């Protein structure tokens, strides 16, 4: 702020006698002016007190507040008296939460509308102008503050004491680095978990309820989600596998080296999408396509799990399967590649 018009902004402070003689409103206005805020219009909404219009406005506002009270009362009654326990087959609990919401909404709406209407209808109408100064500080403040900072830094002598400057740099840097080290406690060395699943040679394919799967359990053109019959096999995030029985006459074009992974018309793929790791859950029988419901990647079973649409870039890994002496499905080996989404260390 330049000094040329600076003096306009300096309000004349009233003397103590003047202050004592001022009304409350005058004091308020003088205080505002002292802060560069000028009330240029200030008018009662109802200059004549006690008119019908004023009483109407007042009644409106207070009825809003009372509506709020009513809503709050309703909330308390509902909270105490309305049945709220879930009972299968008995729907009376269903009204509890909606009624609470309605009452709470009415309560808060009443209070809120009352306050807003009070301000709009009854509080004095004001137009206030606040001065704005740009830049915010005057030259004196700016230069003295700057000088204080620069002088303070210069007094430390850091500019000319290069040894100190370097050593504090080294010291502070080392301490900062030290502070980062405890984060090392968070680190876990990847030990190939992303490449492994619990599937190994001879592990049976079981369903979620623990039953092993036999070929005759499945209809042609059906899909079953299977898990390895090992401890923790049901919970392992990379283990879920889809076992599909193709219909007669459907021929799978096997990928390189996977020609003997199937058992008859049965074929097994990892259920973990190669895009972002969701379970590929939707099996479209007619077109033999598998669809991931997260990002809509589509894999063609007859093309050995190759993605045919959507963002997935790699085929679903195939699990080589066989049937053991007792007639149950088993894995002939684990997966031959990492299942699930790609990661940096994954070879092609």
């Amino acid at each position: 702020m330049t000094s040329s018009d600076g003096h306009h902004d300096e309000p004349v402070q009233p003397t103590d006698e003047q202050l004592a003689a001022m009304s409350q409103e005058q004091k308020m206005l003088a205080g505002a002016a002292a802060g560069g805020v000028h009330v240029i219009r200030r008018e009662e909404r109802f200059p004549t007190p006690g008119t019908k219009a004023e009483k109407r406005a007042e009644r409106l506002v207070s009825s809003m507040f009372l509506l709020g009270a009513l809503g709050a009362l309703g909330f308390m009654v509902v909270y105490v008296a309305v049945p709220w326990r879930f009972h299968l087959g008995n729907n009376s609990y269903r009204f509890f939460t909606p009624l609470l919401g309605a009452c709470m909404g009415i309560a808060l709406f009443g209070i809120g509308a009352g306050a807003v209407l009070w301000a709009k209808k009854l509080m004095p109408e004001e137009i206030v102008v606040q001065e704005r100064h740009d830049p915010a500080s005057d030259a004196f403040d700016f230069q003295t503050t700057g000088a204080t900072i620069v002088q303070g830094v210069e007094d430390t002598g850091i500019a000319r004491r290069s040894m100190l400057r370097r050593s504090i740099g080294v010291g502070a840097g080392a301490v900062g680095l030290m502070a980062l080290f405890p984060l090392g406690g968070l680190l876990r060395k990847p030990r190939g978990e992303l490449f492994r699943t619990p599937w190994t040679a001879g592990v049976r394919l079981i369903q979620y309820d623990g039953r092993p799967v036999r070929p005759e359990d499945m209809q042609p053109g059906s899909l079953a989600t299977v898990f390895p019959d090992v401890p923790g096999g049901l919970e392992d995030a990379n283990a879920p596998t889809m076992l599909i029985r193709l219909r007669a006459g459907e021929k799978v074009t096997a990928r390189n080296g996977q020609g003997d992974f199937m058992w008859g018309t049965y074929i097994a793929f990892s259920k973990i999408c190669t895009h972002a790791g969701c379970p590929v859950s939707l099996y479209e029988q007619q077109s033999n396509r598998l669809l991931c419901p997260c990002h809509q990647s589509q894999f063609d079973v007859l093309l050995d799990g190759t993605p045919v649409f959507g963002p997935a870039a790699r085929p679903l890994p195939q699990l080589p399967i066989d049937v053991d002496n007792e007639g149950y499905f088993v894995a002939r080996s684990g997966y031959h590649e990492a299942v699930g989404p790609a990661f940096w260390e994954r070879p092609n």
Partner: protein
Amino acid sequence: MRSRRKVEASPAEKAGRWADERFGPSGPMRNLLNKVFPDNWSFMLGEVALYSFIILLISGTYLTFFFDTSMTEVKYHGHYTPLDDVTMSRAYSSTLKLSFDVRGGLIIRQIHHWAALLFVAAMIVHMMRIFFTGAFRKPRETNWLIGSTLLLLGILEGFLGYSLPDDLMSGTGLRIAFSIILSIPVVGTWLAYAIFDGTFPGTEIIGRFYIVHVLLIPGIILALISVHLALVVKQKHTQFPGPGRTERNVIGERILPTYAAKAGGFFALVFGVLAVLGGLTQINPVWLWGPYTPSQVGAGSQPDFYMLFAEGSMRLFPSYETHFPGYTISSIFWPAVVLPGVLFTLILIYPFLEARLTRDRASHHLLQRPRDVPVRTALGAMALTFWVVLVASGSNDIISFKFAISLNATTWIGRILLILAPPIAYAITYRVCLGLQMHDREVLEHGIETGIIRRLPSGEFIEIHQPLGPVDDHGHGVLQYAGAPVPKKMNGFGDLGRKALGFFTPVEQTPANGHDRDGHGGEDKAKELTGGRR
């Protein structure tokens, strides 16, 4: 008797003295209470965000009384019998407890979820207002940075909260998050392992997300909001151009009493809306999704709306995986890490980019109408279109299902629109801005169309135009466009009524040609202002 009573101070005065003698707040406090708030509906948008955040803090604290972060597996035996005897994590079972075994717990949970959606939505709309009116320009770039950071934190906070119940939907989201972190080249695996304490899902993630969700990020958000508001007080509000409004003042109403009453009431109204939503509209019914298991997923699964843009970009991005000998860059790295990173960087640097390109180094306190800055407005429309295409694509399966369109078709439509729609939006918005500008100039020059047709003696029909103010020798209006709305209809004059006091005779000159800003002319100004109305 009378004199003694006069000497005795009122309780309020005593309390004031007590505080003043100890803290001396009078001067600064008076100035704060006299802060002037311009009256414009669009200034409420930030308030909605602020109030939603307060409601989030209140409702969230209540939820912490019941929520258990443990991922230990338990058998459920609560009152929600359909899930009886199902194995689930304690996190999920405590969410069920919160919903079915705590009286009124469900409504608080639903209010919390709705408030989270409103928080992010209000921030987005507030940010649009700031962007399209140029409120981010010098000296307010810092607040733009803080606001953008708040949006980012709000989205992150929402995702963390969404992940806590450990239901099928949130677990699926967590798995995608794990895959996204995993996709970062070189450090991805280590980073994902550090966050999840090993491979997905592990046993730590919900506990870790919980403390970040309830302490770390809310603390940062609270601190940033404080700075955000302190800067608004320090830099004062911007205002739209209008009668008496200049770069060197703010016109509006003070905190006490009007603004405080309105803001307090508005808080209650926002809370009321959230209460009605939380009570009457079900949100995230986790008991219907069931506990998380890696082998299952619901059809039509999608995240909350603020994550849909990332979801959409993951759905649209082609299957493009990069292979080096021995190493792979996952295809989701580009749509899920790079694209959001680029979008947020563009948002953050926009004020500086615009200042540099327009060589505008001046401070601005008067807002611009979007039509007056067609390039910025068109850029904004372009960005929004891009975002909307991503959001819509984030639920393209639902769109396909509801409208019976092929899923592959909606994916391709999304891919094509993502490239084509933003430039089209740019071109259309730019032309619309120019058209609106020309209409403003037209009305200022020729006046408002009255709808009165006059037949001239020559037989020609003309429409009579009502000039807005004085006219020159040719009958053209002499009023210049000043960045404020121009009435376009005869009854638009009536609309101007209260707001546009002194519209034709500005009470204060613009800084360029005026020096009538002294504080002593209050009486005269008041006359001039009211003169316009009476």
